[in-house]
């Protein structure tokens, strides 16, 4: 009966949410048409250039800093992981800032900005035009939209699109498309026609750390994950029991407390139970990139996982 009480309490939900929730259901065909439009226009009208003179410096370092803090931007430059690829339609430009893939997850950071006076002074946001990762040979990458976010920087017309993708299929070509958000039937898609190829081939190393009981934790510059143990993401009010072991002997505590001298702040984490032929999986995403050559293992509680 408790679940029913919760269902009853939902009667008090704000009516505007109820109305918004119906929009995709009411107009499913609109969404499909807009995707077709994106593909067809992409073939004819897209200009793609590479900003050759930008070298390994980020075009919009503030975009990257919004998602990956600390020395992450500099690390991307040092490791030659800056993309600086530019894709445009008549009114907007999207810069692919960086793409990190460790074969399991990927971080993709894009910046969208208006090119001329006709473009809206307010950049389109995720309510109107959402970025979707699709397989080039058809179909949306499962779960990709769940990990995307759009945000505006204060005092700037540019907006960032951030993808955090999990359970990749690195061998299968993908691309980011921008489609109208479901239900925006009478709106124009300002980013229509912009299609960004995404190569998910791993471009960063992963450290495999193993315990004596054969538990394995994988650590890459931007995340750690395991299919053998549940990595409990420490809550802001709780105490973390996850430490990344450094070669210099000073462990890095994975904790939401950003004031820690030797701490690494997560940007999020998740755990999925085994289902439908899939193993259980847990993951913690980092807010700051780490250089995994500085690390020799992971400690969770009293269990040590040594890098192989």
């Amino acid at each position, binding site marked *: 009966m408790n*679940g029913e009480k919760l269902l009853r*309490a939902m009667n008090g939900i704000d*009516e*505007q949410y109820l*109305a918004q*929730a*119906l*929009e995709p259901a009411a107009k499913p065909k609109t969404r499909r048409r807009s995707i077709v439009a994106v593909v067809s226009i992409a073939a004819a009208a897209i200009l793609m250039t590479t900003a050759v003179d930008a070298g390994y410096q980020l075009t919009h370092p503030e975009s990257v800093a919004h998602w990956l803090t600390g020395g992450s931007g500099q690390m991307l430059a040092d490791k030659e992981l800056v993309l600086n690829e530019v894709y445009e339609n008549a009114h907007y430009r999207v810069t692919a800032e960086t793409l990190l893939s460790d074969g399991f997850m990927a971080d993709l950071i894009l910046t969208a900005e208006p090119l001329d006076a006709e473009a809206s002074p307010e950049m389109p946001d995720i309510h109107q035009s959402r970025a979707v990762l699709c397989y080039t040979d058809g179909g949306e990458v499962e779960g990709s939209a769940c990990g995307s976010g759009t945000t505006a920087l204060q005092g700037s017309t540019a907006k960032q699109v951030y993808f955090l993708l999990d359970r990749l299929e690195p061998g299968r070509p993908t691309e980011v498309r921008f489609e109208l958000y479901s239900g925006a039937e009478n709106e124009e898609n300002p980013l229509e026609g912009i299609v960004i190829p995404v190569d998910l081939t791993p471009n960063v190393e992963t450290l495999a750390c193993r315990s004596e009981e054969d538990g394995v934790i994988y650590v890459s510059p931007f995340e750690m994950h395991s299919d053998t143990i549940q990595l409990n993401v420490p809550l802001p009010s709780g105490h973390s029991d996850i430490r990344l072991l450094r070669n210099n002997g000073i462990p890095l505590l994975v904790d939401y407390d950003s004031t820690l001298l030797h701490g690494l702040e997560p940007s999020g984490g998740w755990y999925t139970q085994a289902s439908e032929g899939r193993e259980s999986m847990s993951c913690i995403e980092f807010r700051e990139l780490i250089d995994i050559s500085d690390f020799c293992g992971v400690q969770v509680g009293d269990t040590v996982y040594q890098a192989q």
Partner: protein
Amino acid sequence: MDDEQIISLCISGDERALAAIWESYGGRLQRLAMTFLGNASDAEECVSETYYQAWRAIRTAKPAHLYAYLAKICRYTAFGMLDHQRAQKRSAELVELTAEMEQSIPDSLPDAAEEHLSEVLNHFLAALPPEKRSIFLRRYWYGESIAELAAALHCKEGRIKTLLHRLRKSLRTELEKEGIQL
């Protein structure tokens, strides 16, 4: 006839509004009522009561979105009818939805008033991206099936299930944070 015209007819007391509501939304309301009540005759009674309540109330409070407004009345009415049918078997759909929502309920926390719970739910929904909010509400408010959601959103049922699982987990965290037990 569009929603604005139907609402205008209601406000002016024109009974053609009832036929227009039935034509536009009768099927969906019947299905929503069936989700909670489990049999066609109760659902029909619930929908009839919804028309009557809407007909009376719409003149004093013009709704921004007609179907959401009608569905809300329908849902209230359905739960009211359930209160009178306690001894009877609940619908299979309601049992399924109830079981899923119970995964969001934390243990060992103080009891909560329904109004406070609604506030917390609104707060939880406000923090969600529109797509996730829509999926949550279409499942747990409008009672749509996983298959229907997957078809409407052009994705696999597995993705919907995974997303709902994560949303229930997030809701549980939110309820725990607010110290709520049901």
